[in-house]
């Protein structure tokens, strides 16, 4: 430290920050001015990047962002529009979710889950398929393996059944497809016993039918179908709806009719159009009802015995009397539950459920003469016309999406601009120093 005493240290430190060389030529401030001028002319000075957000640049960036978002949105929405099924896709997705819940329910609940086709009508095929799947879950699978009464009846089989004298009171329906398969075993069963046993004391069957019709005038057929239901006989329309317009209209109905009128109602429905498909299903709940009734009788007997016991034991300790009352209460609760179940089965058995789908006649395909091949110019013209139309749709989609982004995301735009301005101010503060 002898060498660097206090004074000399200070002097050396001062010397360290002293510029001893000749001043740079040209002066640095002139170089800076030249560099700045070059930058302003567009010749960027490479070597030191300075973030300098100007308002026009920020605006341009925002516009580019909006247009990009609009284009992406339009591209994503465009395929659905071209196929014309955009609206029905969502409806179909909802149907899937609803049907996923249906199989675990009983028949009545499953029918309540039956959706309306509130799409554009194009998804009707899917709806029908889903309807079959929905009804074809454990409940139906369980039945299909059982006896004839408990199984499902296809349209062809059903046509043979209705042709059997006495099976249906109204005779052979008009629009049923003729049987195309031989039905030796089933037909023998059908002829040997009635499928619809009208005597409730012998058999309790929950009946359900689905029918798909093709009609020239869907709305007229829909109105007629609604009138088939006899309100006076406790029958009612559980569900009805019509979707689409004009030739694309499609109707769905869920009818609850008296079980003994099922055949007659089906015949009336067949007259509304051409039967495309038909399905009948039955669930024999006789065993369940018998079981419920047995349990009910037993519980009532227990209740009676308990009441008698209570009458005899007036002098019993209070605790025993209270216990007895508690037992009676639980037995009565059980009786009420069983009664409710029995009544519910009774309602399901007494009213059959019919799901009707009415579709318009398919449009006839344009007849084309294979001999007349289109000329390339005509093909080109059509392609151009189609492209023009698609382009207009695309433009409309883009405009709509842009508006949606601009207006719908207004709050986010404000937030983004505020953040941008704050960041800009912060960067500028940093850049100044």
């Amino acid at each position, binding site marked *: 430290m002898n060498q660097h005493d206090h004074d000399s240290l200070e002097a050396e430190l001062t010397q*360290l920050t002293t510029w001893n060389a000749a001043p740079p030529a040209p002066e640095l401030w002139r170089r800076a001015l030249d560099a700045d001028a070059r930058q302003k002319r567009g010749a960027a000075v490479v070597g030191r990047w300075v973030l300098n957000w100007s308002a026009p640049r920020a605006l341009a960036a925002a516009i580019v962002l909006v247009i990009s978002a609009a284009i992406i949105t339009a591209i994503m929405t465009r395929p659905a529009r071209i196929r014309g099924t955009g609206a029905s896709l969502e409806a179909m997705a909802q149907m899937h979710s609803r049907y996923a819940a249906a199989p675990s329910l009983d028949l009545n609940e499953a029918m309540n889950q039956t959706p309306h086709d509130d799409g554009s009508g194009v998804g009707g095929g899917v709806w029908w398929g889903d309807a079959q799947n929905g009804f074809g879950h454990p409940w139906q699978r369980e039945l299909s393996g059982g006896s004839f009464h408990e199984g499902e009846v296809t349209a062809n089989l059903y046509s043979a059944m209705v042709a059997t004298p006495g099976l249906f009171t109204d005779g052979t329906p008009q629009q049923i497809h003729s049987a195309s398969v031989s039905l030796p075993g089933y037909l023998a069963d059908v002829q040997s016993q009635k499928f619809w046993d009208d005597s409730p004391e012998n058999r309790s069957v929950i009946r359900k039918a689905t029918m798909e019709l093709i009609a020239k005038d869907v709305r007229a057929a829909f109105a007629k179908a609604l009138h088939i239901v006899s309100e006076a006989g406790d029958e009612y329309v559980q569900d009805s709806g019509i979707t689409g317009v004009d030739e694309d209209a499609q109707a769905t109905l869920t009818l609850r009719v008296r079980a003994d009128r099922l055949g007659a109602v089906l015949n009336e429905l067949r007259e509304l159009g051409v039967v495309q498909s038909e399905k009948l299903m039955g669930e024999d709940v006789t065993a369940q009802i018998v079981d419920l009734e047995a349990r009910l009788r037993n519980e009532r007997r227990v209740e009676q015995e308990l009441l008698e016991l209570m009458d005899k034991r007036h002098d019993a300790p209070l605790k025993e009397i209270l216990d007895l009352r508690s037992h009676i209460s639980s037995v009565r609760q059980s009786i009420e539950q069983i009664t409710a179940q029995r009544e519910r089965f009774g309602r399901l058995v007494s009213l059959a459920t019919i799901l009707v789908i009415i579709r318009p006649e398919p449009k006839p395909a344009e007849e084309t003469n294979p001999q007349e091949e289109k000329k390339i110019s005509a093909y080109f013209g059509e392609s151009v016309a189609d492209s023009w139309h698609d382009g207009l749709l695309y433009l409309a989609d883009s405009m709509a999406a842009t508006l949606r982004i601009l207006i719908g995301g207004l709050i986010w735009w404000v937030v983004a601009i505020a953040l941008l301005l704050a960041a800009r101010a912060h960067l*500028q503060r940093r850049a100044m*120093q």
Partner: protein
Amino acid sequence: MAASHSDEQLLKRFVGGDRDALGELAARYETALLGLACGLLNGRRDLAMDVVQETWMRVIRYGRSFNGRSSVKTWLYRVTVNQCKNLRMKRRVPRLEDDQQSEEAPQDLIETEETGQELREALDRLGPLKRSVILLCYHNGMTHEQAAEILEIPLGTLKSRLHAALTELRAALAEEVQT
């Protein structure tokens, strides 16, 4: 004889379009800024010139936004110190002895006083904060108040840091002498 203008007036004139005002401002501070930058950058004159040129670039770009909360002199020094700090953070600034062997740094662009070498090495071993405090406080004509304002720290903090830095520097130099 024209009346001498204050720094703020010169800046205002420059912002108004008078390029000579910047020249006048540079005449007052360019050499001093070069010296400080050179000291902060281990005697690298080439880097010091880059830093000071960048300082003038900032004045040109942001002079219009200068709000006068500090003096122009303080602003210029603060920009220079920050630029040196950034440069040292971005790239390793070689020591003087390395520089002398470096092809990138010509001899005429390097401070070559041998007497300052030991001191530079000892300073280089200090932290960047202490180095800045020492060099700024012993920079020509700089008061402690001005140094505190440039470094944006309270005066008391500056003094305590200066004391600690000098103690550490002396110890380092003494150790060098003993070895």
